[in-house]
C-alpha cells in the first residue's frame, strides 16, 4: 500500500487517531463573541475532518486566564464556561467525520500586547520585555502563579466538558510555561526559578493540576521547542532533559516539537518555515526529543507533500506529522491521497500569507485557496457542476485570477477558453518565482496547470485576445483578468520611456524576467515595499551586482510579512545589499555612461545622488483596461458587479439576465485581479471564485 505509514492509526492516551496526519495548533483568528468557536471556526475544522485529517489540534494560543489577552488575535477563550456549548458544536462536527479534535491551551505571559482591551498588565517570570511584540511586563507573583495553574485546570475541564478529545499545553513560542523554563527570561532565584527543577516547577504544577482535573481518559499533551536557537536560551540538550523530565511524570500523552524559539523576528521566521527553507528543516530536533520520551511525538514545519510525510513516518523520526499549512491550502489532502488523486492536491507553497496575516491580527487565509475558512459563507472546496445550461466562457489572462476563473467555470461544466498573451500560465507568479529561494511560489501555477488540463480547458497560450477573437467564440460569459504593467510613468522625472533604449529606468519585471540583463552597480527604488522590490534586489545581488535598495517607506520590504521579511533580510545582508529607507527617488538623469539617481529624504528634504549603471523601479502595477473599456458597453451588465451579492458570495444578479437573453448572443462581463486595481494573488483568486462559482 502506498502511503502505508500515513494511514497507520495511532493511540494517544486513550484516543485512537485514524492516521498519522495532524493539523497542528495555529492561531486562526476566527473566534468571535469574545473568543467563542462559532460557525466559521467549526466549519473550518469540519472541512479538515471531512477531508480525512486524523487529528486537529485547534486554537493555537487559546487562553486560559483573563489576563492573557484574547482579543488581539481573536483567540479561543477558555477562561469562561461560556465556551462549553461552542466546543460541543465543534467536537460534534469533527467527530461526525471520524476525526479527533484537541485544543492548545496556554497563558501567553509576556508574549502579547497590553495596550488595549482590558489593558492587562502582562506577567512573566522576571519582568523582562519581549522584543517581537515590544511588550513590557511585570514580574509574576506567587499568588498569580497559583491562580494561573488553577486557570489551566479549569480550562482543561471546559475542553473536556465540551467533548473535545484532549488539550495541548503550550510550552513553546515563549509562552508562560517556557518563559519559566528559559534562563534567558527566567532570572528568579526562588523555588520557581534558578535550578532546573525550579524552572520546571510551574509547568509541572500546571500538568499535575490539569491531570487531576481531567483524569486519565482525556488526552493531555505538551508542545515544546526543540532548541531556542539563542546563545542564552535553551539548547537541544536542555530540551531533551526537559522533555525527559515531563515524560517521567507519566502524565503527558504526547509531545509536539517545534524547532526554534521565536521571541525575536529572526527566530520567529524559523517557526513557520517559508518557501526559502528546505523540507522539514527541524525534523532532527523532533527526532532528538523522540529519543528521550516514551509517548508519541508530533512534528510540523514544512511538511507539505504526502510522499515526504510518508518518508518521515517510515523513517520513524516522529510518530505523527503536522501538515497544517498543507491543510489550509487543501483541507481534502488526505481524501485525495486515499483516492489516488495526489496530483489534485493543492499543495502549500510556503508563501506564508496565512501566518503573516495572523501576526497582524488578521484572519488566517490561504494565498491560493479562497474557500479556506470561508466554508461558512458557502464558498466551496468542491465545485459542483451547474444544473443550468452549459455556457461558453472566455477567460482572458492566465494569471491567478484567470486560472481560478477557468478552473471554477470548467468544474461547473462550462466550455472554457483561456487566452494568455505569453507562452505560459502564471502571470506575475511566474516572475515572482524567478527570485532566489522563491521558486516554490510557482507551485500555485503548477496546480492550476494540472487542473486545467484535467478539466480540458481550451488553453490558447501565446495568444493576445482582442474583441473580435473573443466575440468569434460567441461567449455567454467573458472574464477579463488581464493584469497590468509596471507603473513607471507616474513621475516624468524618473525618465521612463516605452523605448527601452531611451528609458533611464527599468522595472522589476524587466529584471526578473531576464528581459534586461543585471547591471553591475544597481539602485533599486521600491515605493511599494512588498515582494517585488526585495526579490529584484536579491536577484540582482545574486547575479553579482552591487545593489542598494532604497525606499521612501519606513524600511525596505516593510509590507512583507513577519515570517518572510527575515529570510529576505538574511539573504540581502549576506550579499551586502545596502538598505536605505526614507528616501524618495526624485529624479534620474544620464551623465556619460552613468545614471544619476537623485534621492530626497522624506523628512529633511535633503537630496543625495547615487552614480549607478542601472536603476530598477518598483512602483506597483497599472491595470490594463483596454479590453475592458472596449467590451464594457456591449456586455449585458456593462461590466458591473453587484457588490452586495459579491460580498455575500451570492449569485450575481446579471446571470439571470443571461437566462433571459438566451439565443440573443449577449454576454456577461466580469473583470478581476490586477486588471482592476493592483492587489494580490488572494484577492484575484477570491474574486474569481465568488464570481464564477454560481455561473
Amino acid at each position, binding site marked *: *500500500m*502506498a*502511503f*502505508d505509514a500515513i*494511514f*497507520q*492509526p495511532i493511540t494517544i492516551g486513550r484516543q*485512537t*487517531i*485514524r*492516521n498519522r496526519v495532524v493539523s497542528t495548533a495555529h492561531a486562526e483568528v476566527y473566534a468571535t463573541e469574545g473568543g467563542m468557536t462559532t460557525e466559521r471556526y467549526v466549519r473550518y475544522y469540519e472541512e479538515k475532518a*471531512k*477531508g*480525512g485529517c486524523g487529528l486537529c489540534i485547534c486554537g493555537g494560543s487559546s487562553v486560559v486566564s483573563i489576563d492573557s489577552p484574547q482579543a488581539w488575535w481573536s483567540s479561543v477563550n477558555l477562561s469562561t464556561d461560556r465556551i462549553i456549548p461552542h466546543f460541543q458544536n465543534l467536537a460534534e462536527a469533527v467527530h*461526525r*467525520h*471520524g*476525526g479527533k479534535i484537541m485544543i492548545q491551551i496556554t497563558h501567553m505571559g509576556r508574549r502579547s500586547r497590553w495596550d488595549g482591551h482590558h489593558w492587562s498588565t502582562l506577567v512573566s517570570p522576571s519582568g523582562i520585555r519581549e522584543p517581537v511584540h515590544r511588550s513590557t511586563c511585570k514580574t509574576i507573583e506567587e499568588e498569580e502563579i497559583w491562580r494561573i495553574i488553577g486557570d489551566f485546570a479549569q480550562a482543561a475541564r471546559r475542553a473536556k466538558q465540551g467533548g473535545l478529545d484532549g488539550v495541548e499545553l503550550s510550552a513553546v513560542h515563549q509562552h508562560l510555561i517556557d518563559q519559566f523554563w528559559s534562563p534567558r527570561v527566567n532570572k528568579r532565584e526562588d523555588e520557581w526559578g534558578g535550578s532546573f527543577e525550579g524552572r520546571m516547577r510551574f509547568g509541572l504544577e500546571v500538568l499535575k493540576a490539569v491531570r487531576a482535573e481531567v483524569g486519565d481518559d482525556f488526552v493531555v499533551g505538551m508542545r515544546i521547542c526543540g532548541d531556542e536557537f539563542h546563545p542564552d536560551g535553551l539548547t537541544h540538550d536542555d530540551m531533551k532533559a526537559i522533555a525527559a523530565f515531563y515524560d517521567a511524570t507519566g502524565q503527558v500523552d504526547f509531545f509536539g516539537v517545534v524547532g526554534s524559539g521565536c521571541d525575536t523576528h529572526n527566530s520567529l521566521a524559523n517557526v513557520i518555515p517559508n518557501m526559502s527553507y528546505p523540507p522539514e528543516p527541524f525534523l532532527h530536533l523532533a527526532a532528538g526529543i523522540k529519543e528521550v520520551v516514551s509517548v508519541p511525538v508530533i512534528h510540523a514545519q514544512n511538511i507539505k507533500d504526502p510522499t515526504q510525510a510518508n518518508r518521515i513516518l517510515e523513517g520513524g523520526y516522529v510518530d505523527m506529522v503536522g501538515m497544517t499549512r498543507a491543510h489550509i491550502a487543501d483541507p*481534502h489532502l*488526505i*481524501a*485525495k491521497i*486515499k*483516492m*489516488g*488523486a495526489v496530483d*489534485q492536491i493543492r499543495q502549500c507553497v510556503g508563501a506564508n500569507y496565512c501566518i503573516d496575516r495572523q501576526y497582524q491580527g488578521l484572519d488566517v487565509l490561504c494565498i491560493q485557496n479562497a474557500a479556506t475558512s470561508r466554508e461558512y459563507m458557502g464558498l*466551496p*472546496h*468542491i*465545485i*459542483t*457542476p451547474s*444544473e443550468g445550461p*452549459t455556457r461558453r466562457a472566455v477567460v482572458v489572462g492566465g494569471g491567478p485570477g484567470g486560472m481560478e476563473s477557468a478552473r471554477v467555470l470548467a*468544474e461547473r*461544466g462550462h466550455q472554457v477558453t483561456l487566452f494568455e498573451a505569453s507562452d505560459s500560465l502564471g502571470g506575475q507568479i511566474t516572475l515572482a518565482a524567478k527570485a532566489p529561494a522563491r521558486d516554490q511560489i510557482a507551485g500555485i501555477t503548477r496546480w492550476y496547470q494540472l487542473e486545467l488540463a*484535467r*478539466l480540458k480547458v481550451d488553453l490558447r497560450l501565446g495568444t493576445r485576445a482582442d474583441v473580435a477573437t473573443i466575440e468569434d467564440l460567441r461567449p455567454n460569459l467573458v472574464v477579463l483578468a488581464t493584469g497590468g504593467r509596471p507603473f513607471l510613468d507616474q513621475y516624468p522625472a524618473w525618465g521612463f520611456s516605452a523605448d527601452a533604449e531611451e528609458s533611464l529606468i527599468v522595472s522589476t519585471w524587466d529584471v526578473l524576467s531576464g528581459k534586461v540583463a543585471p547591471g553591475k552597480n544597481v539602485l533599486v527604488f521600491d515605493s511599494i515595499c512588498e515582494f517585488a522590490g526585495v526579490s529584484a534586489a536579491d536577484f540582482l545581488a545574486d547575479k553579482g551586482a552591487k545593489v542598494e535598495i532604497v525606499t521612501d517607506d519606513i524600511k525596505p520590504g516593510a509590507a512583507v510579512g513577519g515570517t518572510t521579511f527575515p529570510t529576505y533580510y538574511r539573504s540581502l545582508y549576506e550579499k551586502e545589499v545596502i538598505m536605505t529607507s526614507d528616501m524618495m527617488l526624485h529624479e534620474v538623469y544620464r551623465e556619460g555612461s552613468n545614471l544619476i539617481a537623485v534621492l530626497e529624504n522624506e523628512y529633511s528634504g535633503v537630496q543625495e545622488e547615487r552614480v549607478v549603471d542601472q536603476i530598477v523601479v518598483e512602483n506597483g502595477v497599472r491595470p490594463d483596461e483596454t479590453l475592458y473599456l472596449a467590451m464594457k458597453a456591449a456586455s449585458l451588465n456593462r461590466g458591473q458587479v453587484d457588490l452586495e451579492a459579491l460580498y455575500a458570495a451570492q449569485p450575481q444578479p446579471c446571470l439571470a439576465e443571461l437566462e433571459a437573453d438566451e439565443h440573443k448572443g449577449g454576454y456577461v462581463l466580469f473583470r478581476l485581479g490586477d486588471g482592476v486595481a493592483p492587489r494580490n494573488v488572494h484577492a484575484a483568486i477570491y474574486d474569481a471564485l465568488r464570481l464564477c462559482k454560481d455561473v
Partner: protein
Amino acid sequence: MSATLFYGSLTGLVLAALLLALVGAARRFLLWRRGRPSPVAWLGGLAAMPRRYLVDLHHVVARDKAFAHTHVATAGGFVAAAGLLLLVTLAPLPAGGEMVLTGLMLVMSLVMLGGARRVARRRRRPPSRLSRGPWQRLPRSLTVFAASVAGLSLIMLMVTWLPAAWLTGVLGGTLALVLLAGLALGLGEMFLGMTWGGPMKHAFAGALHLAWHRRAERFSTRQSDRDGVSPRSTGLKPLDLDDPDAPLGVETSEDFTWNQRLGFDACVQCGRCEAVCPAFAAGQPLNPKKLIQDMVLGMTGGSDAGFHGSPYPGKPLGEHRGQPGGPMVVTSGGALVDADTLWSCTTCRACVEECPMMIEHVDAIVDMRRHLTLEHGATPGKGAAVLDNLIATDNPGGFAPDSRMHWAADLNLPLMRELGQVDVLLWLGDGAFDMRNQRTLRALVKILRASQVDFAVLGDEERDSGDVARRLGDEATFQRLARDNVATLSRYGFQTIVTCDPHSFHVLGNEYAAFGGHYCVRHHSTFLDELLQQGRLKIAPRPRSRVTYHDPCYLGRYNGEFDAPRRVLAALGIELTEMARSGFRSRCCGGGGGAPVTDIPGERRIPDMRMADVAEVEADVVAVGCPQCTAMLEGVVDRQAEVRDIAELVAEALVLEESVSEASSTATGARRRPRQTGHPGRLVEEASQ
C-alpha cells in the same frame, strides 16, 4: 454376389468391427486406469449417463442452436442406426421383425445422413477454433457410414421383395460391393475410431466421462430439478497432505486421477474453450483446447506436431512431446507443456463453462501448478513472494497482520471478539489492505449501519481466505489458512457471512467444507438485494449516465449469481447497458488465479480488452462487485469509464437520517449532467464515507 455372401460379408464386417472396437475399448479403459484412483459409482454413473447427456450436456450444446440440431441428428441417427445394424446383423431375429428393424435402420441412417451433410457444411469454412486434420474428414466418414448403412438397408429390404438375381447381377453386385466397402470405411471411423483414437473417440470417452465424472455433483438430478437449483461444483479438490504416497500435484499424466484422464479423451476439439479464453485472446501462451490435447499426449505419448488446431500463442507446434510416465510440464528437460502456459490461466472457468464435454480444465491446471509450486518452488513472477508473504503474515501483500483494521480506525467497528454472537459476520478479505477497496468496505459499512444490520468483523483475527495460495498451487498454505480461519470462525456465532470479495465468498462457501467449515456465505450484492427486498434499505433512485455491469468470475460462473447485482442496480434506478460478453459468458478482468502476480506476458492485457468491451457499449460507469476486478479495470490506462463497486453506488444513493445526510449534502447534491472522471467532489465524498 450371392445373398449368402452378402449377408456373410455384412455380418463379418460388423462383427469384426465390433470385436476390434471392444479390444480398443478395453485397451483405452486400461490406459485411463493407469491414473490415480478415484472412486465412482460404476453402475449408478452409467444409469445416470443418458440424463446427463440429454440434460446437462445438451444444455451446453444447445447454446448453439443450429449445431445442437445437427448433433442430435448426426449422433442420434448414428446411435440408432448402429444399434439396429448390430441387431439386424448379429441377433437372431424373426424375419418380420428384421424387416421392421431394417426399415427403421434406413430411416435413422437417413437422419444421420442429413446431420452429416450439415456437419460437412460447417466444415467448409471452419472457424479457427475448430481443429482440422482428421476432423476435416469426419463429415465424409459420417456421410459414407450413413449412406452405406442406408444403401445396405435398402438392399436388405429389396432382397426380400426383388428376385435374388439382381444382387448377383453386375449392377447389383457392384452396388453391394461398394456399399460394403463404404460400410467398412464407415465402421473403421465410427467403431474403431471411437476406441482406437480417431475423432469419434469423443463419443465413447465422452459418454463414459459423463458416467464416471470426477465431479458427479455438478450434474442435475430429478431432485435438483424439483428444488429448482442448478447444481455447481466449482471448489477445488483438496490434496491429501497426510498421505505419504499421494503425489503433491501432477508431475506425470499418471498422477491425474483415472477419470480426469478419461475426461481428456472426451475432448471433441470444438474450440469453444479457446474462443472464450481471456489468456488466449490476450496472446498469452495458453489455449485450453491444446492443453487438453497435450494431456492426451501425456497418456499416449507423442509429439504435438499432430495437433491440428491453434497452437499456444507464440509457441510453434512440434517442439514439445510427451510420453507415458514422463513429465508433463517443462521444468528442466523437454516435456509437453511450458510452465508459462499453466501460469497464464486466470482460473476464470470460461472454458469449463463452455465445454460441452464437461472437461475440467482448471482442475488440471491447478493440479500441475501444485507440482511446480510444492515440489519445485517454481511459482513465477511475484508469485513466490506472495506465497512467502502468506506464510509469514497471513496476507498476500506482506502487510503487518495487525494493520488489517487500519482502514477502519475511525469507524469503531464491532468485533466478534467482543460480541461473540451477531447476525452478520462481515468478512473483509485482503482488500482491507488496499486503499481502493477500503472505499468499497467503508461504503458497505455505511450501508450496513444505515439498514441497522447486527454485524461484526473478525478484525485482526481474520486471515487471507487462501484463495490465491490455492490457485498458485500452494495447497499446504491454503489448508493452513483454511484450518486457521475455520478454527477462528468456530468460536463465534453468526447467521451469515457477508463479503464484498467473491474470492473469499467462493472459498469460504465452497472450499472450507472439506476442512469442517460449513457456512451460509453471501456476496454483498446478494445481501444488499435481500435488504432491498426486505425494505431495510432506503434508496433514492436517480437516473445515471450509461452504466454496464461486469460479472466477476468467482461470483457468476463459480457461484451462479448473475441476478442479484442486476436487481440491486435496477433498484438504484439504473438501466443497465449489457456488454456482449456478460452473465455466464462474462470476460474475465485478468485478476484471478494469481495471474496478476505471475504476470505472464502476452500481446495484450486482459483488463484492457475488458475495458474495450465497456467502451464498446459506450458506458460511463462500469459497476463491479469484486476488489480484483476493480483493481484490474481501474489499472487500465486512458479508460473512459469509471469503475464503481455496487456498494459504492448504493451508499451514494442511501437515504440517511437527517443528522448524517446533512454532513455530506454539500457534496452529494443532485446533479443533472454526468460528472467528470475523478471529479474532486467524489474524492472527499467517497474517501470520507
